[in-house]
């Protein structure tokens, strides 16, 4: 019971801080907007090319946006040494971690949901039918990024060169998430039947489950002495 209470309180605290300062969401949002713009300058795309490239562009933008959010998640704990209090509190470290994952998941998915209509408008996509599937893909892939990402955020926040190290550690490990997310998104955007890309969604689920368990198990070694 205390365990779930800690998850709830940590997530709620992050949410409250974020609602008051709006630091993370706004920086994520504008960064992703710039990424979209840069991509549309870099590739002059017709409708056909857009179909091929859009899933990749979408996930590059989302991944880097997510990294901004994940990095902020624990660096916010550095002011007034709050991290120290989390470490020495009797609360289970796994619960603190899960609370952070929940908050990060919420922030990143929110940013994605705000950004996605921009993609739809800028690149003339037709998404109405597959919207539920797309949202499911966003959720699962973001969960995959968040579980590993929150773990590494907790790790890199306590070392030097933390802004650089988070993507360096996270992205190679997140290769399966990226591949699966891009392939599934492409399938959905092209209007393929679900059966053609269902295995990618299953891969995302497997990744999420494996790394939630593994991260939950090892996070105590990072947040504790």
């Amino acid at each position: 019971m205390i365990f779930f209470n800690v998850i709830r309180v940590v997530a709620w605290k992050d949410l409250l801080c974020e609602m008051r300062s709006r630091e993370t969401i706004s920086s994520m949002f504008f960064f992703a907007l710039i990424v979209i713009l840069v991509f549309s300058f870099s590739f002059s795309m017709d409708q056909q090319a857009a179909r091929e490239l859009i899933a990749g562009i979408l996930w590059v933008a989302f991944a880097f946006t997510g990294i901004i959010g994940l990095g902020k998640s624990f660096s916010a704990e550095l002011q007034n040494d709050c991290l120290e209090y989390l470490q020495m509190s009797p609360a289970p470290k796994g619960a603190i971690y899960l609370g952070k994952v929940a908050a990060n998941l919420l922030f990143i998915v929110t940013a994605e949901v705000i950004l996605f209509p921009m993609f739809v408008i800028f690149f003339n996509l037709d998404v109405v039918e597959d919207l539920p599937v797309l949202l499911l893909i966003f959720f699962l892939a973001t969960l995959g990024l968040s579980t590993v990402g929150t773990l590494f955020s907790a790790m890199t926040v306590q070392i030097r060169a933390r802004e650089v190290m988070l993507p360096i550690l996270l992205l190679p490990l997140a290769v399966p998430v990226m591949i699966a997310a891009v392939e599934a998104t492409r399938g959905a955007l092209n209007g393929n039947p679900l059966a053609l890309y269902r295995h990618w969604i299953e891969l995302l689920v497997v990744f999420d489950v494996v790394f939630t368990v593994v991260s939950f198990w090892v996070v105590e070694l990072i947040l504790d002495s």
Partner: protein
Amino acid sequence: MLNTIIRKLQRYKGWFGAAGGLCLGLGLYYGLVASPPDYYQGEVVRIMYVHVPLAHTSLLAYTVLFLGSLWYLWTRDPVVDNLCHAAAGLSVFFTAVALITGSIWAKPTWNTWWTWDARLVSFAVLFLILAGYLMLRTFIDDPEREARYAAVLAIVGFIDLPIVHFSVEWWRTLHQPLSISMRGVSISKEILIPLVLMGIGFSILFVYMLIVRTQMLYLSSLLNAKKGRLLSQVHLAKVEP
């Protein structure tokens, strides 16, 4: 117990070096001279005798790193951490060399230096994970924390690796049928002898290198500890009334 093992290994490490060298020498003779060229690939097939064992050794090194990391988290013994650090350094070295030799092999057989083949991509990802591991270690000042974080990263990365391989394989097979295969390389006796010899040779040599590198890291941390100790002793001498 650990100290006894290390002492034993130190004492007999020369034998590892000699045995590894012998196996490699024999393997080189069989691979370069005694075995016939392949019917399709020609002489180029001889690259396999150095490339494949190197790749296997890098995976062996990562397995040692993974088990060592678990062991470290169990005992929190700094020497085990030195072992992990050494295994990671060797693994990144073997992975890099395996990637380069693989690239050299790919040029004459597949007419390209690089292809997005599942095995190649997995190895590239392995290389990146290990490079991140070594970088992470340089950015932490406290050796105890360095060891702990590095162990966590090694474990998470090791669990991730099969998933990476699996996903890349799916990705490739869906995009284009695998036009590239090990065409014509039937595992015959002529090929197996040098391959096995080189494999055993590199594995034993890896053990030898692991001992030497662990020794190196252990001695340098010992030296640093001594320097730190010297500093404390100077201070303490000053304080005593």
